[in-house]
């Protein structure tokens, strides 16, 4: 078993095929999209492959240590930041192929006109604990 992170981006991913902002869809298309996402997560829970899914607000800040006795420095948000994560799903699957298959299904979620969005999702393997048997 291996864990993979499926990352969805607000910005920074290559443009989707069906790239229409959600507020330009019809309300029914939005409902269909949400239903698809919920069904997808529910199905993964049933197959025992779902670990976690979360959505992030678009706005955040940069923070860094600024030396002993000083409060941390905060900066941003930066409108020009190229990459902006929208949310993720963590899956625990048997193979990389399965992770790709599932990311493909997630990317097929319907958008404007009820057609698949073909959104680009990032698939990243987790680094694991070292195995017990090494030779």
């Amino acid at each position, binding site marked *: 078993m291996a864990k993979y992170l499926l990352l969805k981006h607000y910005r920074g991913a290559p443009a989707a095929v069906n790239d229409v902002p*959600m507020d*330009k869809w019809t309300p029914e*298309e939005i409902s269909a999209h*949400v239903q698809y996402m919920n069904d997808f997560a529910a199905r993964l829970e049933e197959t025992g492959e779902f670990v976690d899914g979360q*959505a992030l607000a678009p*706005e955040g800040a940069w923070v860094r240590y600024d030396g002993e006795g000083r409060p941390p420095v905060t900066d941003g948000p930066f409108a020009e930041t190229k990459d902006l994560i929208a949310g993720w799903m963590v899956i625990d699957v048997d193979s990389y192929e399965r992770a790709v298959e599932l990311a493909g299904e997630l990317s097929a979620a319907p958008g404007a006109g009820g057609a698949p969005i073909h959104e680009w999702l990032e698939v990243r393997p987790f680094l694991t604990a070292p195995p017990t048997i090494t030779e």
Partner: protein
Amino acid sequence: MDEVLLRNLTPSVLAILVRRGADFAAAEDAVQDALVEAVRVWPADPPRDPKGWLVTVAWRRFLDTVRADAARRRREDLVNEEPAPGPAPAADDTLRLYFLCAHPSLTPSSAVALTLRAVGGLTTRQIARAYLVPEATMAQRISRAKRTVSRLRFDQPGDVATVLRVLYLVFNEGYSGDVDLAAEAIRLTRQLAAVIDHPEVAGLLALMLLHHARRAARTAPDGSLVPLAEQDRGRWDTASIGEGVAILQAALARDRLGEFQAQAAIAALHADAPTAEETDWVQIVEWYDELAHLTDSPIVRLNRAVAVGEADGPRAGLAALAALDDSLPRHTAVAAYLHERDGDLATAARLYAEAAQKAPNLAERGHLTRQAARLNARR
């Protein structure tokens, strides 16, 4: 076996142990053990006196722990004398337990967790699931909270307002997980109202009942939010509304107004309207004025702007909104709504989309995006 009945006994059993001289943290662990034991044993062998049974088992558990500790620490003076089972504890004991678990020295998240465990009788696992954190994290949070309050004296009087804030938090953030936190908050507030005669406790209980009554109507089958004006009022729980209104009226009659009574009054006026169009917005604005006077909260003034928009027209609502800081949460969503009522659909659609970007949760984001989509589809 009725699990709620069992958990209703939790605070009084814990209070008896503490009154007998057990320190709070150890007593709380012993009561949890007794509850687990009860769930295991009672279905086959129900006790005649459930509370007496719990006290006996919990006290024995506590003594076992103390004896084990004492053997290690050579401290045996406390355990030699086992007191006789005491009389039923005074309501004061239960009340002190609420105060202790909501003590101002605790952070809100610690107070919430400790209240749910020590007063509510929920297990650490149930609380962890309800707040979507790992069980070990919640266990640590609870044991730190117990260490904090163990240093406090059990007989110190508390401020009921701190307890109400904790119960309000449990209710208001109570729509996730397998434990129904909203129902649990109502149960705990009801139990509190039984041991203290205070109009704001009644006000909070009424507020919870009135909001809980609308729960079934608040989400569509697809999980999306249904705004108040569009809810199917036939799905509101009239028994819960009736109870909430009666409790509120009795509280208001005592003429000691507080913020929870004022909030409940607003909820009652909504509940009272057979249709959204028949809502008494003029009275609702008056209650928001009372509320703003009591709390001076910018969120209250934001909600008041919505009410003004209904009572005196959207232009008046927008004027009230213009006086408020536009970085307030939901300011943009309110602006969108008032512009739509004013007939400016282009501005409304743009603001709904902008508000969706700032929404604090997925349900609201989805709702606001749909509002934008609905207007964009009409133009």
